[in-house]
């Protein structure tokens, strides 16, 4: 039976991880390569890196990080943030990432998904979605709207429609982030996750709101997610991946327990 994936997410700016991390062992908390290695050994099923480097002339730093991470771990990882075109995708994939995540650029130019899937295969192309709950309207019938700039800028695109459209264009997976739940540690947006996951046949990674192992159990059952993104709850040492997986297993959720 296919295991539900537990995926730590690391934000990287100018080649350094940004969240303050309290590991019990001697991991350099700003070093994305050391953190990747730590999570690989701790039982992460996959890793996600988001490049939040603001200045475009420092992008090459991220490629070097990807190269070093690829040499340090033997599990898949994806890279998102600032992927604008096929060249950006190619650079990240050739440096050793298994997948690239596109978000804003794909909304502005949906053909980027199709072109990426054609050149590199659907399995490489993750659609990142930042979604906000709104009143249902003619333009946004599902009541969930695509947003950018951390939720400040609504795009006028219905999230449900966009998820299905991206699947049609060739996206191999969706990473679904609820702007409303993000950072709250109060639980994932279950209604949104369930709606999107039921509407597409490609896997959906739930993102935003994880605070406890119970939250993961909810989104992986009620929310029908195939994988759960986690950040603060492991970055600050509140839970280990082992603890989370042990809990999920006790709840009857299939997880990878040998690594």
């Amino acid at each position, binding site marked *: 039976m296919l295991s539900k994936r537990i995926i730590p997410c690391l934000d990287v700016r100018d080649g350094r991880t940004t969240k303050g991390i309290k590991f019990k062992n001697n991991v350099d908390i700003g070093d994305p390569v050391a953190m990747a290695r730590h999570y690989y050994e701790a039982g992460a099923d996959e890793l996600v890196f988001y490049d939040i480097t603001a200045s475009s002339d420092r992008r090459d730093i991220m490629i070097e990080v990807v190269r070093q991470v690829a040499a340090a771990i033997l599990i898949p990882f994806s890279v998102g943030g600032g992927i604008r075109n096929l060249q950006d995708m190619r650079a990240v994939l050739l440096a050793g990432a*298994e997948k690239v995540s596109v978000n804003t650029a794909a909304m502005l130019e949906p053909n980027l998904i199709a072109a990426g899937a054609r050149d590199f295969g659907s399995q490489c192309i993750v659609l990142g979605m930042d979604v906000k709950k709104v009143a249902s309207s003619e333009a946004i019938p599902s009541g969930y709207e695509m947003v950018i700039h951390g939720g400040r800028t609504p795009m006028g695109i219905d999230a449900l429609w966009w998820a299905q459209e991206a699947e049609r264009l060739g996206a*191999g997976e969706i990473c679904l982030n609820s702007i409303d739940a993000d950072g709250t540690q109060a639980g994932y947006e279950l209604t949104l996750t369930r709606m999107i996951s039921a509407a597409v046949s490609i896997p959906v990674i739930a993102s935003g709101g994880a605070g406890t192992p119970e939250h993961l159990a909810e989104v992986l059952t009620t929310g029908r997610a195939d994988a759960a993104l986690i950040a603060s709850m492991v970055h600050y040492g509140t839970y280990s991946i082992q603890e989370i997986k042990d809990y999920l297993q006790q709840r009857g959720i299939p997880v990878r327990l*040998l690594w």
Partner: protein
Amino acid sequence: MVVIIDYQAGNLTSVVRSLKVLGVAGEVTQDPAVVARAQRVIFPGVGAAGKAMAILQELQLDQALQEAFARGAPILGICLGAQVVLEYSDENENTRCLGVLPGRTRALPRQPGLKIPHMGWNQVRFLREHPIFKGLPEGAEYYFVHSYYPSPAQEDMVLGVTEHGATFSSVIGWRNLVATQFHPEKSGRFGLQLLENFLAWDGSYAE
């Protein structure tokens, strides 16, 4: 010399990297002459069968692989490489494939609520003993990304199976060829163990 066949079907860096971890410098090649001299061949790949076969034929790697099999060089197929070694694939409308092993590649059966592609970690139940399974514990999981699976004509060519909705063959093999639908190069230390076992294998296995 371990040769990794490059037929423009996806990224080979992770295969090369895994070999490097094991202290082996794999040679990535598109040249049939290099394949002809290979002591050992890794045949990876992701993507669609139709395009893959077209490129293999164009580069004359199809013959090179068939010859490598015929002369007994140990061959490891991975993912798409485990599919196109069969005679036909249902992908891209009955694509004619290499025919190293009898059988065909089929689509994973769709059913409501079942995610396709089958993406993520899953267990493999080993049906037969094989040198490449040495030291792999029961319950270990391997990383999969695929919508099709290899279905050899002979039951004794199925070495391992996996559940995703239905049961499908995830490891196949015959003589000096063994092939995994999953990606050992992305499957942590158990995947690495399998690769190490392959590098130590002399290619002999039941007829």
